[in-house]
């Protein structure tokens, strides 16, 4: 049985667990893990005040219980695997640099903000600002992959500088807001203002997207890079069809208010 942290009951106010990641815990003894600092609101507490620790530490960490009010799970992790058995709270996987973080349920807002590497997989849906920027920062996610099997909230990939965000469901408003580079793919429809203020990078829409008037039509083509990306995503479990992988895409260039070096690729079919 992997090292398992089981939340006894949901905390009254959010619990901040910055640094609760498999690589950090791997080298610690049980007693050291239990003594780790967590913040309950503005009060310093010990991990054991909230979590029961079982199993033994190796490269894998399992978090069980209702952790929707637990923030920063897996923040800054560099290696190993962290699994959250149910829904996870805000800032899950923020600043992660490597390893794999799997959330079996939904994840809260600001998941994967400032991420630099590794993979975040969400089997449910994600909140707002997935892979976005920390407050005040120009650049959001700078590397790694985020895969969401459900829907995502607003401003997914805001300020994205590098990396790949793929969504099986719908994306909310302002997807790729102010993005600098990188790729966002959604199989479901996009909300309003996709790619607003984007400078570079690619947004791939497999269904409905209402474009801003500052995007201009460039051409229809079969982007070679995209079939590679989509094959990779299918291997990771995203339900993509052969038609989509081989398909033809309309390229819209924008945002014209910025450099117009970005693009929104809209799936047109495969004739």
């Amino acid at each position, binding site marked *: 049985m992997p090292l398992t942290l089981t939340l006894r009951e949901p905390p009254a106010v959010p619990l901040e667990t910055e640094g609760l990641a498999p690589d950090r815990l791997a080298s610690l003894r049980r007693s050291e893990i239990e003594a780790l600092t967590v913040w309950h609101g503005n009060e310093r507490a010990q991990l054991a005040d909230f979590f029961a620790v079982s199993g033994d530490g190796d490269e894998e960490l399992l978090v069980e219980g209702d952790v929707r009010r637990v923030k920063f799970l897996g923040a800054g992790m560099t290696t190993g695997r962290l699994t959250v058995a149910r829904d996870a709270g805000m800032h899950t996987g923020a600043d992660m640099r490597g390893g794999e973080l799997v959330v079996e349920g939904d994840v809260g807002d600001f998941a994967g903000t400032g991420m630099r590497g590794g993979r975040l997989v969400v089997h449910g849906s994600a909140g707002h600002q997935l892979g976005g920027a*920390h407050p*005040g920062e*120009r650049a959001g996610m700078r590397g790694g992959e985020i895969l969401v099997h459900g829907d995502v909230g607003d401003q997914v990939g805001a300020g994205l500088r590098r990396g790949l965000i793929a969504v099986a469901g719908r994306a909310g408003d302002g997807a790729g807001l102010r993005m600098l580079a990188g790729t966002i793919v959604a199989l479901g429809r996009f909300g309003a203002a996709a790619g607003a203020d984007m400078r570079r990078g690619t947004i791939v829409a497999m269904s409905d997207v209402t474009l801003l008037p500052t995007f201009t039509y460039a051409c229809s083509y079969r982007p070679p890079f995209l079939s590679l990306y989509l094959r990779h995503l299918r291997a990771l479990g995203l339900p993509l069809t052969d038609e989509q992988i081989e398909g033809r895409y309309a390229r819209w260039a924008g945002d014209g208010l910025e450099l117009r070096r970005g693009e929104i690729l809209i799936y047109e079919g495969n004739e």
Partner: protein
Amino acid sequence: MLRIAQGRVYDPANGIDGEVRDVCLDGGRVVEELPSHAPRIDARGMVVMPGGVDIHSHIAGPAVNAARKLSPEEHRADVLDRTATTRSGTGGTVPSSFTTGYRYALLGYTTVVEAATPPLAARHTLAELRDTPIVDAAFLVLMGNNLSLFELIRDGGPVTEAVAWLLDAAGGYGVKLVNPGGVEMWKHGNRNVTSLDDQVEGLGVTPRRVLEAVATSVDELGLPHPVHVHCNNLGVAGNWRTTLDTLDALEGRRAHLAHVQFHAYGGTPGKRPRSSAPELVEHLAAHPEHSADVGQVMFGPATTMTVDAPVSALLREVTGGKWVNADLEAETGCGIVPFTYRERNYVHALQWAIGLELFLLSRDPWRVVLSTDHPNGGSFLSYPRLIRLLMDREFRNEQIGRVNKKAIRRTVLGDDLEREYTLGEIAIITRAGPARLLGLADKGHLGVGADADVTIYSEHEDREQMFATPRFVIKGGRVIVEEGELREAPAGDLLRVAVDHDEAIERTLAPLFEEHYSVQLANYPVREPWLLEPARRVPAGGGR
């Protein structure tokens, strides 16, 4: 009681230059002698100077606070937890108020002047200064774009009385003019003044008339600090002529130029600037009534924060990032743009080089003193590095070799300026000079009766390291910093000027308030005792 025994003392105001001697402190003052059983700090082999005095910095008030709110990312990266002696806070280029006090003290500074507060915002500045521990603080009151004053200047009204009233109403220390007339023009819609004789539209004044009238008033009142001027045309190529015009216009009247580096550019507007530092140095050398702080640019992160709102708008076009631009009714504007100075950038390297030229060419360290216009040219935390640049020619030349070559060719820095500042000269430009220019008779020196503000450094070849981590900092006779760590953090004093005015001036100002302000005259002066008291009043009239 405390005896600082056998340190090498640099007290230029009293003609002491590296003499090994004792400094005796008692009751918050420097005293002649102490009984032999008095507690002592063994300062053998150490350098003893008066506490540092920063003549121009931005540490409190609404602009500073807006800058804090604008850059949460800097705070995330620099978090200070609460300790037994200190409050929690955040750092970055615009630290929280408590952190500002701690970090100034840890740097050996004990007096700081907040350089730009609109009288309308004086309560905010005072409240933050009350929460800026350890350092004694004063603030300058903005009067360069004040509509009521403009009307008095235009109509030949009682400007001097109004200046005195404003100072008293705000609880301020001195008078600041920022781009006189230009900010008001900006508020009329994306315009500015470009020379001293441009009309400020619809108001019947010119920058020259404002400068002359206010400088005359400051001299008539005998304020301890002369009028503190941020000239027109900041940052514009060719602006050294405006700066020189300003100094010429103020000839015979005392004036202090703020961050003169930003006003020392040759060339033609719209084109690449070059250095005109030598020309300004010439003027300053010939005019003992004029002085300046340099406003050195240091490479790395900064936050430009200025009342000169049109300049901010131009800067924002450069960065394309987040910014603030604000209007303070009837008194001024404000602009804030986070900024990074880069070695390879022509303009940034030129600004850096011009600052160094001003220091190295200056013949009178008493009148060309150190500032980075914190946080505009860089944080005050970069002072130690700047001191090393001035004191260590080899280090300086190595740095010159790293920056944009074209920029260096537009300066005289490439001519291998030999000068190395001595410890005595550093003591002048960081303490004795600013204190004298501010008219703070008890600051910046270690003569009998002076404030017991002392900084003790370990002698170190690397001057940056030496000045970054003082061994001891003593404020008001209390040992605040020991072995580079804060021991206690008492409140500093508010320094304000004591200046009389005729009560009748309020009858003149009342209709102007009715016309220009959204606040009532009666609610305008700061009266809250917790903001104003305790304070040390520095009397006007003793200046000359």
